[in-house]
């Protein structure tokens, strides 16, 4: 049974996502030690530094989604099932940095589909209490673990259906943001296909740095950030960084 990590990376006019990818790949190789496949386009690929053994698959990203007024090419996650060459796949956002091997534990399980439903604010401000922003508990599609089987295929088919009718589902679930977020897409699909009862989850909260945190330094073991007048630091702990200007570090 093959297993590996799948990463999506498309540069935009404003953000050099390939720089974030280079750091992410380095940490995945060091700590998770599994094969990596990067889904990208040729335009982004040309700018990447050589990263050793990495598989690439080229697609043209679907455009039109925005985040903070800037282009955000993130709506291709629904293709993960068919694009993944692995029997067990872990899809990671490229701004999720694996400073530990904690996620390798998930590869040794027989769950069909796992996703975390909690995020943990490393600045101590509890800024990810998102209940008030929709009528559905959000999941964090930052980390997805899935196996290739009929059940999971149906989950992804549901994701595609909801994506196609996103405006309708977005309104039905009274989601505050109108742009497409994979987090809500998967939350809605999982709720729909699981009979509105519940589903299996990754049992930890994603340690996350909010968008307003400025990243000061990043090494192979940890990250330092500035949040207003406070400097924070974690070492040997996975971190999801929402500030996309990370590539300047």
């Amino acid at each position, binding site marked *: 049974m093959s297993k590996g990590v799948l990463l999506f990376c498309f540069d935009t006019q404003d953000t050099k996502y390939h720089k974030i990818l280079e750091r992410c790949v380095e940490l995945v190789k060091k700590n998770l030690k599994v094969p990596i496949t990067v889904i990208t386009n040729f335009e982004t690929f040309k700018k990447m530094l050589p990263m050793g053994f990495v598989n690439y698959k080229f697609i043209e990203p679907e455009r039109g989604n925005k985040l903070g007024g800037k282009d955000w090419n993130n709506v291709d996650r629904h293709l993960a099932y068919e694009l993944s060459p692995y029997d067990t796949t872990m899809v990671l956002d490229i701004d999720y940095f694996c400073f*530990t091997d*904690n996620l390798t*534990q*998930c*590869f*040794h*399980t*027989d*769950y069909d589909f796992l996703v975390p439903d909690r995020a*943990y604010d*490393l*600045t*101590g401000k509890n800024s990810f209490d998102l209940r008030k922003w929709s009528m559905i508990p959000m999941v964090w599609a930052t980390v997805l673990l899935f196996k290739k089987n009929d059940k999971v295929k149906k989950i992804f088919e549901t994701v595609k259906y909801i994506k196609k009718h996103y405006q309708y589902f977005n309104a039905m679930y009274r989601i505050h943001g109108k742009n497409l977020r994979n987090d809500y897409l998967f939350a809605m699909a999982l709720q729909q296909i699981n009979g509105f009862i519940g589903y*299996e*989850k*990754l*049992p*930890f*909260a994603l*340690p996350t740095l909010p968008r307003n945190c400025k990243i000061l330094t990043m090494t192979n073991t940890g990250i330092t950030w500035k949040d207003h*007048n*406070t400097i*924070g*630091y*974690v070492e*040997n*702990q*996975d971190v999801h960084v929402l500030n996309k200007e990370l590539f300047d570090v």
Partner: protein
Amino acid sequence: MDISELKKQSDLSYNIAVAKRNALEKAHSRQIMAYREHLFRADPQTICLVRTLKESHDSFCVLDTNNNPVEITDPAEFLSVLIKRNQESLNAYHQIYKTFTKKDI
């Protein structure tokens, strides 16, 4: 104590509290472990439950983190893995905690 000194001490206490909280969260994340293709928390409750059941049963069922039942056929091995993971995470927390106590007001 003047107000600037009070603010300084308060900020220091806040920063230590946040750092402690992060270190504890890190320990909790580290306690998640796979055993027999299921995820478990190597926390005191799981360790105590396994230890208690092991005293009178050669095999038994416990729930994983998603409430799926898992048959444990080698309780000694499972307990050993749980304790190892628990102590690894808490030792790391302890090391970080010692740096906070030096900074305490």
